[in-house]
């Protein structure tokens, strides 16, 4: 209902301390609400199977409660048209997420990740408080309405932009503000990770889209900055993903990459606003919003699949898995759908949103006769991101599901129960549907794009006029048909297949340990990008003609967290250690401080000048 184009419906409700608050539903909010409610429901069903009450008596009920609270918080912040209602929803969501992340609070890793998340989210909240305070000062009210042109000065506009970028960027996971993301998403239970990656990151994106479109007359530098941030997030996110060994941490870094792609679309849209080019705006924003939906679909699917894998194999490290497609066929199939979708490959939905962004980026260059915008250089960067994502997901899929198990002594994996498989199916079907019939989304995207952008442009060209989604859909449908035919054909010929051991150029006795492992697969790309990744390696020391058993370990830490923030924090702690002498833990000392402060304050009331003159100068 909300997705129909047209003016928004706004309802006021009284909030005595802050003027009247207002909530309203327009097409943009409705667009973002769809994945929240879809995944809120599916994830809860998954959680029943994944985190059953019987096995986790302490945390299961808490998990369900905070799940509901998080969904409610997100819903509130999406419909809020008043700054304080927005912050209320935001804080409810952020704090519920903290409790969700630390569901396994017996693990030290989980606690650490939860605390880093808490610090990051409160930094973001503080920045947002600053932004809203400035908003109130600049516009005189807390209502979230577009600011009129020229109503506030350039300095205020820039300050609002940067505060919004930092505050929402911390939540969305833009590099370099992503440092909390890998730990939090890796250590949370899988359906919680799915919601965090798939839905909660998008709240940061929603905030950016909503606020940046409320500010009038953006300079081109803003759009350029967002585009550059998006490109670097995308590239570095996927490069870090390739170096990870833990399946959930890897998927978390891919979320950073996809947020980068979303920001590229948003940057293009902002450039379109500055240059008054409606086609850039429509293509960029439509690509951004469609990728929001697509990412929430396939990332949730991938995390649920990863949860299934972790549940079945009881292991999170890719290098110890293998051959799970035999024992977990349904999970393998759904994970393949998710992997193909996230790489942006043709018949599925990832291709459609990346297509829109590409068209927009190419469009900045192909204007006959006009100067070319530097934004077009982002198109090859996006191509590189796509190729790297493809490499990474081939690695994950191949190492986890294909080949032979790398630890043959462990118990075989079990397929997940139906309760866990069932929620993955609608997500996979939606991926195929959006990929096969993208033209259906044309009107929806038009409404969602028009909602924030109509303040500046009178009429926006519809998405279907700018991008031939119908043709893309036709090509995808034909591809799916061909694949289905081939599959049927092969299935009918299946009886005539003879099985033999892997030939591998004539190796007599291949073993599971001889398979290529995930870190070996990623080694070439890791060495190409070693300047960014800075892997830590512990090489074996081999001495003598009969050396003892040795092992090689290599880790890719998060560069921002482990190389920048943690050393800086340690240094600050050492610096402030000097102040520890004032904190002995004795109540008496603290009361003395209160007395001294009180005496000083009282003394400011005493007019010392007259007193001295009266005492001494008779």
């Amino acid at each position, binding site marked *: 209902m909300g997705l129909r184009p047209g003016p928004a419906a706004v309802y006021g409700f009284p909030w005595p301390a802050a003027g009247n608050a207002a909530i309203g539903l327009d097409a943009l909010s409705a667009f973002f609400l769809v994945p929240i409610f879809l995944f809120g429901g599916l994830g809860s069903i998954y959680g029943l199977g994944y985190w059953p009450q019987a096995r986790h008596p302490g945390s299961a009920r808490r998990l369900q409660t905070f799940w509901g609270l998080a969904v409610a918080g997100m819903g509130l912040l999406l419909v809020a048209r008043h700054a304080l209602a927005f912050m209320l929803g935001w804080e409810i969501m952020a704090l519920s997420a903290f409790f969700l992340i630390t569901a396994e609070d017996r693990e030290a890793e989980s606690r650490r990740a939860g605390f880093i998340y808490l610090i990051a989210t409160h930094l973001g909240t503080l920045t947002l408080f600053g932004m809203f305070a400035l908003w109130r000062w600049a516009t005189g009210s807390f209502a979230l309405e577009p600011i009129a042109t020229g109503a506030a000065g350039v300095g205020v506009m820039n300050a609002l932009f940067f505060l919004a970028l930092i505050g929402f960027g911390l939540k969305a996971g833009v590099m370099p503000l992503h440092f909390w993301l890998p730990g939090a998403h890796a250590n949370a239970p899988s359906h919680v990770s799915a919601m965090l990656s798939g839905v909660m990151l998008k709240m940061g994106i929603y905030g950016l889209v909503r606020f940046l479109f409320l500010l009038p007359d953006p300079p081109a530098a803003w759009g350029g900055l967002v585009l550059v941030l998006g490109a670097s997030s995308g590239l570095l996110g996927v490069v870090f993903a390739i170096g990870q060994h833990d399946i959930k941490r890897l998927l978390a870094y891919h979320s950073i990459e996809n947020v980068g792609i979303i920001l590229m679309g948003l940057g293009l849209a902002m450039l379109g606003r500055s240059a008054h080019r409606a086609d850039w705006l429509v293509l960029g924003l439509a690509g951004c919003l469609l990728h929001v939906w697509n990412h929430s679909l396939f990332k949730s699917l991938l995390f649920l699949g990863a949860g299934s894998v972790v549940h079945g194999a009881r292991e999170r490290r890719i290098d110890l898995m293998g051959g799970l497609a035999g024992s977990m066929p349904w999970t393998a199939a759904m994970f393949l759908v998710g992997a193909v979708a996230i790489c942006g490959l043709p018949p599925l939905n990832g291709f459609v949103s990346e297509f829109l962004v590409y*068209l927009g980026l190419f469009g900045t260059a192909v204007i006959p006769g006009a100067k070319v915008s530097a934004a077009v250089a982002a198109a090859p960067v996006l191509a590189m991101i796509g190729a790297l994502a493809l490499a990474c997901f081939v690695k994950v899929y191949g190492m986890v599901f294909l080949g032979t198990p790398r630890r043959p002594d462990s118990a075989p994996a079990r397929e997940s129960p139906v309760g866990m498989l069932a929620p993955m199916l609608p997500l996979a079907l939606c991926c195929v549907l959006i990929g096969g019939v993208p033209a259906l989304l044309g009107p929806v995207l038009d409404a969602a794009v028009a909602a924030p952008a109509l303040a500046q442009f009178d009429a926006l060209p519809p998405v279907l006029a700018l991008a031939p989604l119908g043709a893309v859909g036709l090509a995808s449908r034909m591809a799916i048909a061909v694949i289905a035919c081939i599959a049927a054909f092969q299935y009918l010929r299946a009886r005539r297949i003879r099985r033999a051991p892997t030939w591998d150029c004539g190796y007599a006795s291949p073993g599971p340990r001889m398979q290529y492992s995930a870190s070996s697969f990623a080694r070439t790309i890791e060495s190409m990008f070693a300047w960014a990744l800075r892997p830590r390696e512990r090489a074996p020391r081999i001495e003598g003609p009969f050396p003892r058993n040795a092992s090689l370990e290599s880790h890719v830490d998060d560069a921002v967290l482990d190389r920048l923030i943690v050393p800086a924090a340690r240094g600050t702690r050492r610096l402030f250690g000097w102040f520890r002498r004032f904190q002995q833990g004795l109540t008496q000392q603290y009361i003395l401080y209160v007395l001294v402060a009180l005496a000083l304050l009282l003394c400011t009331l005493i007019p010392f000048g007259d007193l001295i003159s009266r005492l001494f100068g008779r």
Partner: protein
Amino acid sequence: MVDTVIHVALLFLLPPFLLGVINKTKAKLAGRVGAPLLQAYFDIAKLARKGFVLSGTATWVFRAGPAVALSAVAAAGLLIPFGRFDAPIAFAGDLILFAYLFGMARFFTMTAALDTGSSFEGMGASREAAFSCLSEPALFFAFLVLAKLSGSLSLGKMLMVSPESFASGAAAPLILISLGLFVILLAETCRIPVDDPNTHLELTMIHEAMILDHGGPWLGTILYASSLKLFVLVAVLANVIVPFRTGKAWLDWPIFVGETLALAIVIGFLESAMARLKMRRVPYLLVSAILFCGSAFILLVR
């Protein structure tokens, strides 16, 4: 209509002939007689007659690999124009579909390689992954130059670079991207100097390593698909390098076929003259391709 039929027929029938031409060129330059020109057709037919043998660890993904790779490359072939004849399927932005169809073929070939659970296939897949992430940006830079020159985003119009563009200031960028596209061609089809299609040393292979466990009809499909890929990329390059065309249809088709065969001979020449690069130098070659295409773009928009 007739053109479309000829287009599709050429697309599906000519590619193995290119392989024969390349091998015959190499043989002649080495002083041998070499295999017949139609050898590739005989090989594919022979393989199609054989039975299916599947590795014990392989799943349905292995069987899907060759089929999906073939369909993707064939679909990509339908997107490009041959000579002055339009592509059967064209819409704005189909260059992105072209690149990503190759990506899809690559995805399924690599997963089929990993499905066998052997180390050599993993090696080949890992190298293919690493090199593809360097060739994709180069390809997109080249497409950018073509798009700017032609003012359109459809491959059909982009690749029909008219002779006038050569004469006007666009000659230098076009030459640079021709070089870049040639390097991409060699990398994507795994020819010398990137990879040797005749080697049997697993430790040095890229493409050949990935298909070690494919046998029978699957190997035939893979062989046919790789020749299709070669043909498609040669056609793209031919359109860029040799934009001469007369107005007459009966003359232009042979001109186009001649162009592709000439390029195949050049590839054969290069394969005989050069040795394959050391594996760790290949990224430098690909980065130079990116630099060629990138500088072409900068030259164009300066």
